[in-house]
C-alpha cells in the first residue's frame, strides 16, 4: 500500500458566530495517484477542509499532515509541494495567459530551460498555446479553469487541490478538465477535486462525502453504490402526461425513499427489504444505482411527494394558445449576436428547459423573456401579452427566481416576503394572507427574524421560491434554481414545481445540472446564440444514439449535439 499524501485525524473547525461547526471530527487520508472526490452540497465543509490542508485556516481540534508536514506549524513547507486552485480560479484577469504563468513560475523559482519546458508542456496540455497573449479576463469560463489548473501545476506539486473547479462551467469544459486531471495521475500526484455535482463523484477513485460538516462516507464510490444495489428501479411505459402524477403518488407509498423524473420514465429508490408498490400503469425495470441514490439513502430518504404550496394555488385556466410564444427573438450587442432568431412555444403546464454551454445566450434569452432586455428583433408574448408593449402587465404574470436566489441578505424573512409581495403588487389583506400562507407552507416560522443572508441554504431556497410565487403567477422563470443545494432540498423544490405544473403553471428553467434538465418536458439546446435542437429529453438522447453509445445520458446528448454543431459551423466557415 502506498503512503498517503494527506492524513487527517479528528478535525474540527468552528467559525465565530456559527452555532454548528463547519467540520466536525473528520478523519481521512488521501492517496497518491488517485482522484479523491470531496463531495457534498454547499456549506458541507468542502472549502473549509481544503483551506485547512493548505494551512490557510487552523483547526480547533485534530491534526492534518500533508506530505508529512503539519498544516498548522509547517505551512511554508506544504506550500512548496502543493498546487491549489481556489474557487473562481484565482487568476489575475488583467494579466495575459503567459504573464499569469510567468508570475507563478517566478514565485516558485522556476527558471531556464526547466521553465521553458514546463510552459510548453502546460500550454500544450491546456490547449492555450494560441492564446498566450490574451488577457485572462477575456477567456471563456472553461479556458480560465484550464489556466487556473496550469498555474497550480507549475510547481510540479505532489498534491493538487481543486476547489469546485466545475462550478459555472458547462459539461463540455468539465469533461475536458476531468480528462486532463486523469492524465496527471500517472505521475503519482494526488488530486482532491471538490464538487457539489454528485455525478462527478462516481468517476472519482475515492470519495469523501460531507454533509453539514460531518463525513458520511469515505471510500471507493462503487462500495457506496453497492449499498443501494438492487433497490434502484425505473418505472417505464407510463403515459408522458401522467408521469408527474405517478411520481407524486409513488412518493407517498410506503417503502419508497426517493423518486425523480427521468425523461419519460420515473426513477425510484426503495428502502431496504421493502416490496415495490403495485403499479396501475407501466412496469418496473431494474437500473444501475447512482451516487445520488446512495447519498439520499444515507441521509435517510427524500422529502416525500406532498406539496402544500400547490394545494393553495388555483387551477390555471385551460388555454389552446401557447402561454409563452417567442418568435424570431434576436439580440445583438454591437457586432456580436448573443441570440439569433430564436423561436419556441411553451404550452400551459409545461416545463421548458434552456440548456447550453456558458456564453451560449441562455441568460440573454432569459432576460428578454423577463422584459429586462429589449430584443433587437423578434417578439415575445407571455399569456398573449407582448413583452415589448405590455411589459409591466406581462411581468405581473411572471414569477422570477434569479440565480443565487437574489434575496436581500440584510432583511429578515418577513421583510423579504413583504418587499417582494409589494413589488408584485400585493397589498392590504391579500398581502398579509399570502405572507402567512408562505410562512406556513415553507415552514419558515422559526426563522422569521433571521436575516436572509444568514439562513441555511435550504431555507434560502424556500424563501426565494416563496417570494417568486406569492402573487400566484401563471409563468415561473427559474434561473439555475438549485445549483449548489443538497439533493434533498433539490427534490423538495421539484416536488413543489411539479405539483404547480400539474395545476397549469408554466415553467421555464435554465440549468447546468443534467438531472434537473430531466424534469423538463422539452428542452431547447442553445449554442452560439442559436437553437440547435428542441425536443423532449428522450428525443435529444435519441438524436445521439449510436453503436458506441447505446444508452446515452442527457449529458452525452448535450456534449455530442454541441460538438456536431461546432463541426458544422467550421465546415461552413471553410466552405
Amino acid at each position, binding site marked *: 500500500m502506498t503512503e498517503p499524501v494527506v492524513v487527517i485525524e479528528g478535525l474540527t473547525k468552528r*467559525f465565530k458566530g456559527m452555532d454548528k461547526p463547519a467540520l466536525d471530527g473528520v478523519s481521512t487520508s488521501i492517496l497518491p495517484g488517485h482522484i479523491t472526490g470531496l463531495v457534498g452540497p454547499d456549506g458541507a465543509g468542502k472549502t473549509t477542509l481544503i*483551506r485547512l490542508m*493548505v*494551512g*490557510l*485556516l*487552523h483547526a480547533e481540534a485534530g491534526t492534518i499532515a500533508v506530505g508529512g508536514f503539519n498544516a498548522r506549524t509547517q*505551512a*511554508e513547507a506544504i*506550500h*512548496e509541494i*502543493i*498546487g*491549489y*486552485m*481556489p*474557487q*473562481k*480560479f*484565482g*487568476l*489575475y*484577469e*488583467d*494579466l495575459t495567459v503567459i*504573464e499569469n504563468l*510567468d*508570475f*507563478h513560475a*517566478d*514565485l*516558485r*523559482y522556476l*527558471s531556464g530551460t526547466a521553465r521553458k519546458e514546463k510552459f510548453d508542456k502546460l500550454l500544450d496540455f491546456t490547449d492555450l498555446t494560441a492564446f498566450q497573449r490574451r488577457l485572462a479576463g477575456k477567456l471563456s469560463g472553461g479556458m480560465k479553469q484550464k489556466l*487556473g489548473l496550469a*498555474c*497550480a501545476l507549475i*510547481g510540479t506539486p505532489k498534491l493538487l*487541490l481543486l476547489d469546485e473547479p466545475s462550478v459555472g462551467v458547462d459539461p463540455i469544459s468539465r469533461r475536458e478538465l476531468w480528462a486532463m486531471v486523469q492524465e496527471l495521475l500517472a505521475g503519482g500526484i494526488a488530486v482532491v477535486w471538490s464538487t457539489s455535482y454528485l455525478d462527478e463523484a462516481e468517476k472519482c477513485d475515492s470519495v469523501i462525502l460531507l454533509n453539514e460538516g460531518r463525513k458520511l462516507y469515505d471510500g471507493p464510490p462503487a462500495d457506496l453504490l453497492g449499498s443501494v444495489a438492487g433497490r434502484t428501479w425505473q418505472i417505464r411505459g407510463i403515459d408522458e402526461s401522467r408521469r408527474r402524477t405517478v411520481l407524486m403518488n409513488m412518493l407517498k407509498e410506503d417503502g419508497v425513499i426517493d423518486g425523480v423524473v427521468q425523461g419519460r420514465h420515473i426513477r425510484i429508490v426503495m428502502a431496504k427489504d421493502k416490496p415495490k408498490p403495485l403499479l396501475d400503469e407501466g412496469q418496473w425495470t431494474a437500473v444501475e444505482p447512482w451516487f445520488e441514490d446512495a447519498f439520499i439513502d444515507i441521509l435517510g430518504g427524500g422529502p416525500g411527494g406532498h406539496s402544500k404550496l400547490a394545494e393553495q394555488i388555483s387551477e390555471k385556466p385551460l388555454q389552446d394558445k401557447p402561454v409563452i410564444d417567442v418568435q424570431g427573438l434576436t439580440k445583438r450587442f454591437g457586432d456580436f449576436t448573443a441570440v439569433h432568431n430564436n423561436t419556441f412555444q411553451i404550452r400551459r403546464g409545461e416545463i421548458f428547459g434552456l440548456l447550453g454551454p456558458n456564453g451560449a445566450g441562455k441568460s440573454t434569452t432569459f432576460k428578454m423573456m423577463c422584459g429586462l432586455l429589449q430584443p433587437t428583433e423578434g417578439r415575445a408574448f407571455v399569456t398573449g401579452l407582448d413583452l415589448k408593449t405590455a411589459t409591466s402587465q406581462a411581468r405581473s404574470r411572471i414569477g422570477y427566481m434569479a440565480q443565487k436566489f437574489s434575496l436581500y441578505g440584510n432583511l429578515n424573512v418577513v421583510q423579504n416576503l413583504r418587499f417582494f409581495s409589494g413589488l408584485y403588487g400585493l397589498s392590504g389583506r391579500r398581502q398579509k394572507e399570502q405572507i402567512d400562507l408562505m410562512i406556513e407552507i415553507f415552514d419558515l416560522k422559526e426563522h422569521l427574524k433571521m436575516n436572509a443572508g444568514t439562513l441555511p441554504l435550504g431555507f434560502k431556497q424556500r424563501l426565494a421560491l416563496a417570494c417568486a410565487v406569492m402573487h400566484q403567477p401563471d409563468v415561473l422563470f427559474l434561473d439555475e434554481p438549485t445549483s449548489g443545494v443538497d439533493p434533498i432540498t433539490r427534490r423538495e423544490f421539484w416536488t413543489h414545481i411539479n405539483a404547480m405544473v400539474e395545476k397549469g403553471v408554466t415553467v421555464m428553467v435554465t440549468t447546468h445540472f443534467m438531472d434537473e434538465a430531466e424534469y423538463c418536458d422539452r428542452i431547447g439546446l442553445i449554442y452560439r446564440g442559436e437553437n440547435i435542437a428542441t425536443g423532449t429529453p428522450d428525443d435529444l438522447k435519441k438524436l445521439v444514439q449510436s453503436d458506441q453509445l447505446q444508452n446515452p445520458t442527457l449529458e452525452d446528448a448535450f456534449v455530442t449535439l454541441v460538438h456536431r454543431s461546432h463541426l458544422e459551423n467550421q465546415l461552413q466557415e471553410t466552405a
Partner: protein
Amino acid sequence: MRRLTALIRKETRQILRDPSTFLIAFLQPLILLFIFGYGVNLDSNKIRIGLVVEDNTPDTASLVRAFTNSRFLEVRLGQDRREFEHDLVIGHIRGIVVIPQDFSIDMALQTGAVNLQVIADGAEPNIASFVQNYTFGVVQVWLQHEAEDRGQSAAALPIRVLPRFWYNAELKSRNFLVPGSIAIIMTLIGTMLTALVISREWERGTMESMMATPVTITQILLGKLIPYFVMGIGSMTLCTLVCTLVYDVPFRGTYPALLAATSVFLLAALGQGLLISSVAKDQFVASQIALMAAFLPALMLSGFIFEIHSMPRPIQLLTHVFAVRYFVTSLQTLFLTGNVWPLLIHCMAAMLVISMVFFALTTRKTKKRLDA
C-alpha cells in the same frame, strides 16, 4: 528577491493596464489642483453691498467716494434702506451700510461717537464678518484722510494699524490650499488605492492562490508597497510642477527636503492602506474605511482647510494621530517659507512614528491565513 521582482512586475503591469489606477494617480491630482486652485477661494473679493445715504452733504459725499473706491466692495447707492432689504433677503447684496441723517452733524460736533449702521446676513457668518471688517476698514482710512485734510496731524488719532503679512504677502488662499491639496492626493494614492487593490485580490481569489505558494507575507507586502510608493512619488512630482508652473505657487524650500517629507508621509499612508486591507477583505468595506480613516481626516483635520488652532481642544489632540496633519504643515512650510528644519524634522519624526505603528500592526495582523 526574484519573487519580489515578480510581485512588483505583476503589480506594475496591473497599474499600467487598469486605467482607473492611472486616473487616480495622475488625472485626479490635476482635477483636484484645478478645483483648489481656481474653484475654492477662501478670500472674498468684491462683496456687493447697498449703501444708504440718508444724509446728503459734502462730508458724506467723500465717505461715499471712499466706499465706492474700495477694491473690496461693490457699492450700490440708495436713499432708503427699504430699497435694499429685498436684495439682501434674496442674496443679491451681502450687506447694507447706512449713513444716518445726523452723520454730518455728529462729525462736525466731534462728539467722538459717530454712528454707522451695518446690516449683514447672519446666516452666512463668514461673509457677514467680511462686510463688517471691510466697512470698518473703509471708515478708518476715510477718517484718517479727513483728519489730514483738516490740517490735523495724523498723530491726533491714537493708533494706526498697518497690517503686513509674512510668507503669503497677498494673502492668497490658493498659495496654501494648493500645497495642502497635494496632501489629499497623496492620501488617496497611499491609503485608498493600496487598500482597494489588496482587497480586490481578496475578492477575486488571487490572494488565496498566492498564499498557497511559497511566497512570504513580507514579500507580498513589499510587492504592494514599492510600486505604489514609486507611483506616489511620480504623482508628487507632477503636482509640484503643476503647482509652481501653472498656479504660480512659490516654492521656497528645497527639493530633497520635499522628497524626504513626501517619502515619510507615503510610508505612513501606505502602512495605513495595508492595515486597512488586512482587516477589510472586500473593496466596498475597504473604501468605506479608507474614506473615514484617511480621506476625511485629511480634508478636515489636517489644517488644510480648517485651522487646527481654532478647533476645540480634544479635536486638536486628535489631529496628532493623523500623519497627514504633519504633512500639510511640512508642505505649507516648504512651499511658502522654506526649509525650516526644526519644524520639518519634528513633522517627519512624527510621521515616521505613525508609519512604524502601522507597519507593526500590519505585520502582526497579516498572516498567510484566512481565519487570523
